């Protein structure tokens, strides 16, 4: 069955136009990812209009190319200039830039590229093996469970995307509200049109997304007049040659670091909202803790390049696992891909992989192949990156702003979509200026329909609201959602106030309850382990007399 699906997918994927589009996508991603200020999300968003006329597999393969290219492109700027191209490569600069300054930029780039490649391949293998299994678990979900999963995705996004949880949650609810404007999917009734005809159809998803993300990002990039007029990077990176063979040897010698960081990346990607920007720092931190020479971190240690680069590329696979198996995007990029699938009338859900194996396995394979393409064309893109960085930011911004308009018009051939782009561009910039994170709002817009549909189904089946608490999966996600709201405070105050001593134990004990309720053999065992862990943690703190970190130091 697996071989059959892979062969079927290969038939659609291994065509000259599709592969050519993937090469273009990876190249575009590498260059865009390398330009500081341009995010991977923006690159994927800007690719979208070109994919409307393509088949679903071609469109998604192109976007996956951009995604993988963008994740790897960030390291070029980070290593050569010390300014990370994307938030996913922040930790790469800690050791990549010092190594480049020590006269080994080619080795630093090589380690980064091959670590990215290995991380991508490990996560591609996990994607192909885990996604169908997770989809099987997803088949157990009823509407109550899906609704609670969406709520969890929103709360964790709000809590992880900024310092202020309240602002994050408001952004999420604004996103949900935007999704309600227009015709109600279930009853077909117009909502919040305020007598304005175009609003009766609601806002198209992509103009909202491009406006909120790309438009507002470009405007903040040109806000500083002097900075906007300067070339993006100073010259002086032309002579770099990537040392592939030496880099491969260095990366493979650190197989434990590579596998650990890739697994951190995949796990972070599976969590809704936690993307490459978090995984690269987490992996770097863990690599330093596990290293025999932690003192060398920050001075040009190869371990410090392998960890973040393998983790950020592996995050992409993790984010795709959640999207493919449950229809819930793992991060903003996969949220956009979800939107792209919807444009092609493909709705990801737990039955997606079994219903559309050709497309699903095509996506798996496209992600796998994109990593090979990335390595192959990386050297070419290094030169293009050098050329692009000589252009001042304001020129790129002005051209891309106009392109956003043309691309958005091409979606439905209506000018109202361009006004939507304009409106949400203003809203996005205002929100950024006022300190509201955009990620929860975007996720709210994407998940609003799924939440409403499932709430409607749940309430139509039974008006008993306690089902949200008595169904194990629903309870599981609600508990996760509740604890995720306190997670930023826990991180900030860990060991400083007493409640943080109880937080992990309480979470483990609470999560054990729905797992016990699920029945079977494996889940109650996991629940038992979790419960024992919780009790052990409590016992340990009791033995220590509930002492805080500060008290221990004194």
């Amino acid at each position, binding site marked *: 069955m697996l071989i059959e699906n892979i062969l079927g997918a290969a038939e659609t994927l291994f065509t000259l136009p599709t592969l050519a589009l993937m090469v273009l996508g990876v190249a575009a991603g590498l260059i865009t990812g390398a330009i500081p200020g341009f995010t991977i999300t923006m690159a994927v968003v800007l690719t979208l209009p070109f994919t409307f006329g393509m088949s679903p597999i071609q469109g998604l393969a192109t976007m996956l190319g951009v995604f993988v290219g963008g994740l790897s492109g960030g390291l070029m700027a980070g290593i050569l200039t010390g300014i990370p191209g994307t938030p996913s490569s922040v930790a790469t600069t800690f050791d990549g830039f010092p190594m480049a300054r020590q006269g080994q930029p080619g080795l630093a780039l090589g380690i980064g590229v091959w670590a990215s490649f290995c991380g991508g391949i490990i996560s591609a293998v996990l994607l192909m093996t885990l996604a169908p299994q997770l989809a099987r678990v997803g088949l157990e979900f009823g509407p109550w469970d899906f609704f609670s999963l969406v709520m969890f995705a929103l709360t964790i996004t709000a809590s992880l995307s900024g310092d202020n949880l*309240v602002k994050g949650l408001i952004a999420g609810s604004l996103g949900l509200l935007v999704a309600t404007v227009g015709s109600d999917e*279930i009853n077909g*009734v117009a909502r919040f049109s305020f007598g304005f005809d175009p609003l009766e159809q609601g806002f198209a998803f992509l103009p909202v997304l491009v406006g909120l993300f790309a438009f507002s990002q470009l405007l903040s990039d040109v806000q500083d007049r002097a900075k906007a007029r300067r070339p993006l990077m100073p010259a002086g990176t032309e002579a770099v040659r990537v040392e592939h063979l030496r880099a491969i040897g260095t990366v493979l010698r650190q197989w434990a670091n590579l596998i650990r960081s890739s697994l951190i990346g995949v796990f972070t990607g599976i969590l809704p909202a936690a993307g490459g920007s978090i995984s690269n720092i987490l992996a770097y931190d863990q690599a330093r803790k596990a290293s025999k020479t932690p003192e060398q971190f920050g001075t040009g240690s190869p371990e410090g390049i392998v960890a973040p680069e393998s983790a950020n590329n592996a995050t992409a696979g993790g984010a795709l696992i959640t999207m493919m198996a449950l229809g819930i995007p793992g991060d903003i990029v996969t949220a956009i891909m979800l939107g792209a699938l919807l444009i092609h009338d493909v709705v990801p859900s737990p039955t997606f992989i079994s219903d559309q194996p050709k497309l699903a396995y095509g996506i798996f394979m496209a992600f796998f192949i994109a990593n090979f393409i990335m390595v192959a064309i990386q050297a070419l893109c290094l030169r293009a990156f050098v050329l692009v960085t000589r252009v*001042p930011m304001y020129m790129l911004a002005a*051209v891309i702003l106009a392109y956003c*308009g*043309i691309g958005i018009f091409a979606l439905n051939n209506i000018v109202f979509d361009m*006004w939507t782009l304009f409106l949400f561009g203003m809203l996005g910039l205002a929100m950024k200026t006022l300190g509201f994170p955009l990620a929860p709002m975007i996720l709210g817009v994407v998940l609003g329909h799924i939440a409403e549909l499932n709430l409607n189904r749940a309430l139509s089946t039974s008006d008993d609201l306690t089902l949200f608490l008595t169904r194990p999966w629903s309870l599981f996600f609600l508990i996760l959602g509740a604890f995720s709201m306190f997670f930023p405070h826990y991180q900030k105050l860990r060991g400083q106030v007493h409640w943080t001593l109880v937080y992990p134990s309480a979470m483990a004990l609470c999560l054990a309850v729905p797992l016990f309720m699920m029945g079977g053999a494996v889940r109650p065992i996991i629940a038992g382990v979790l419960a024992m862990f919780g009790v052990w943690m409590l016992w340990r703190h009791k033995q220590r007399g509930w002492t805080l970190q500060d008290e221990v130091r004194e």
Partner: protein
Amino acid sequence: MARSKRDILTAVFLLILTCVFYAATFTIKKTSFGTVGSEVWPRAILIGQGILCILYLAKALRGAYTEEEGQGGGLVGWFATYRNALVCFALYAVFLITLPYAGMLIGSILFVFLLLNFLGGWSAGRMAVHGAVAVFSMGAMWAVFTFGLRVILPEGEILRIW
């Protein structure tokens, strides 16, 4: 530390917006079919949003958010900070308003040309470069969408193509 007036005003604005939308849920048509009314989900969101806005306002009033440096200067200071963004928005609005007359090709070239000059400067040399960038980039983009992707972009009244 000074309380952030900006956050207080934002919280009040969001509360008003929530109230306006909540009131608008009463105008949503009730249907005889469907178990759950179309107004249920928006109301649930708005109730949650209202609570969050009250929390936000309370935090802002308590001084949880403080004014950042560089926010002073009144209206002139604000205009100076957001000058580029405001110019971009204004030009984009003009581009959209004039789209039925100028069309996508001429409109986008003019938009890019004017925006480049506003952001990059009006010297003769720069204007020549900006003109070339606008014509080539937008011309290429227009050609890709029109001939490559077969999208019929608005042609406008000035230049009829089809």
